[in-house]
């Protein structure tokens, strides 16, 4: 699978990308620039987006945006593109409201400890999308 990893902490992003390659054999692109994200998605090169919610200082069309905003806009354009949120917010209620707002397909909380279910979820989401 071609996975687009949107993450602003490069150290975390590199480690996650390596794990996804090693554990699931996925190709991972790391970025946090909205232009790059939309460009890749528009080109149909992306099977799944893993989106970090907290993207401080990221601007899109003159507005400060976070992972939730970008997810929503992606979903508006590409209904079938699976999006998996990764959140550092600790409360379940917070996580669920973020999920609803972003219209994403699922979420995982940082730090991810259950790599198995993480990968299973990714596989399932990719299967669902045509």
């Amino acid at each position: 699978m071609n996975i687009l990893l949107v993450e602003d902490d490069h150290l975390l992003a590199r480690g996650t990308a390596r794990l996804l390659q090693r554990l699931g054999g996925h190709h991972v692109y790391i970025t946090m620039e909205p232009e790059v994200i939309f460009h890749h998605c528009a080109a149909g090169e992306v099977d799944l987006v893993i989106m970090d919610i907290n993207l401080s200082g990221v601007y899109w069309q003159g507005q400060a945006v976070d992972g939730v905003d970008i997810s929503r806009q992606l979903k508006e354009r590409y209904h079938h593109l699976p999006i998996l949120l990764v959140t550092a917010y600790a409360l379940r209620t917070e996580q669920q409201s973020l999920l609803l707002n972003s219209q994403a397909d699922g979420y995982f909380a940082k730090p991810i400890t259950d790599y198995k279910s993480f990968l299973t979820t990714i596989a399932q989401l990719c299967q669902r999308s045509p």
Partner: protein
Amino acid sequence: MSTRIRQSLELDEILAATALELRNFLRTDRIKVYRFHPDGHGEVVAEARTGERLPSLMGLHFPEEDIPAFIRERYLKSHTRTIVNVASGMITLNSPPVGVMVGRQWLQERPSDDLFQHEVDPCHIEYLTNMGIMSSLVVPVLHHQELWGLLISHHSETRLISREDLYIVQNLADQVSLAIAQASLLDQARKLAQREAFINRIVSLLHAPRGSDDLIDTALTWTIEVLHGNGGRLFLYPLDWKSAPRLYAQGQQPVQLEVGLLEELPLWREAMALPSSPMPLCAADYPTMQVVTDLYANSEWQALTPYFQETPIRGFLVLPLCFGQEMLGCLTVFRGPTDTETFWAGYHNPDERQAFPRRSFTQWQHFRRNQAQPWTEEEVTLLKALGGHLSMAVMQNRLYQCEREQRLLLEMRNQALTSARVAAEEASRLKSDFLASTSHELRTPLASTLNYLKLLKEGFYDNEAELKEFIDGAYQSTVNLVSIINDVLDIAKIEAGHLVLNLESVDLPALLEEQNTLFTPESRRYGVSLTIDCAIKHVWADQTKLRQVLTNLLANAFKFTDHGQVQVQAVLSDSMAEISISDTGIGIEMSDPNVLFEPFVQASGSTERHYGGTGLGLTICKFLVERMGGQIWLYSLGKNQGTTVTFTLPLTQPNQE
């Protein structure tokens, strides 16, 4: 005759009618109604004459000595009527209902048992002769067992008075007594009605909704008017010891005191028998109304005269206002002097009265200027009646004020509570936010550490270089985690007040030189020059904390600058040291860059995480600088325009106030 007399209820008209009817009946030269004043002197209040044989005495006053006390006593006690025949020098005294004929013939014909005759005092004869009177008839007029006055008939010739005449005159005098009783009742009723009307007017004024100062001023003005005063004041004790007493003053006032009010003078309080404080009174201390007719007539008031000497105030009424057992204040009405004008009958010297009866009864005008006006019983009663209502109104006003103050106090307390609640909620929100952010921020390096450890654990490395990369990643992530935890602990310590500052005079150039040495490797590595320009010798700070702030800001400057220079400047500004760290780095695009001092906020745009850092550095700097007595702010012209962070510090130890 009686019918005509009773046609009116007005005393003046009754007396005038009586005189007229009696003259028509007796046909003597002059009939007069003579009224006694409280001090014993008399006044002719009604008169009717036949022709001009005897002069008019209407309105003239006669001294007390004209009708000596024993004679007045006799008139009162035995209802004696006297008939004087000047020609014979005899006076006939009768007991009712015996009539007396005055005249020699008549006296010879009368049996001696029903009349009591003796020679008239020669002085009296001379008195009557001087008045041009040959015969007089005097009938007393009584009212309430008091000698009210006399009904007098004078004739310039000897005149016969029959028993019937006397009977009728006596009857008439009785009628007059009745009429006087009626008229005085009417007068009392009228005065009562006036008083009631006035009090009602004041009461309805005072109880108008929202008692205001204007209303009290108006009530005071009306009271002064109705009592014919020339000024007045209402003094009210304060509600509590913290406030000043209230004074409403209208018209003439005593001399302004240098300190306080007249009513606060112990001298005045003592003189007016007022208590020294408005504390609850016991029955014995209950003050009463003071009535002073003439301030200058009594040595008792001597001490108070300086306050009134410059003013046209002669007398006053002082009414204490109490409600229940509480003293509320006092109402004072002042009164000025007046000029009286009395017409006396003839020149009169009381010392030589007996020796020389007056020869002439020509009226003699007596002016008395600047007289004190006595307060009438009527006025005193009126003020007393008013006092009760005024006290009630003052008390109501007080209660209203108390209630209003309580309400305001309550509102203020509510406001304070509300703002305290808002502040507490805000603080709590900030705390929760900080906690949430902290937990959030800790998760990223934690996740990263786990990732690398997982990679190592599973042996997902193909070569030595990759193994080193994973170990480095895990190590770096853990270092990041530790620095976030350290910063968070720092902030928690500062917030909890556990940060102990060791303030002293710090050698700033030395400290900056130390920083220069510390950042030289960075400077070389990035090719960014570091210049330090220090015009300040010493600052008042905690050396360790100041070092932390400088290191933090310089690290930021180098972190966000990839070419150009970092500049440190220390100058004097507003008697504070102003230290600026400027760079030529990536700058800030935000409208309010000072939000960067809030925890975990970074604004470097899309590359921010490349620079690392916890997002707590500036927050800690702000805390430390403010705790050391300075301020910190941040300025940037925009993206790629560089950033300047400036903070201030005291030069020397601020005054401990």
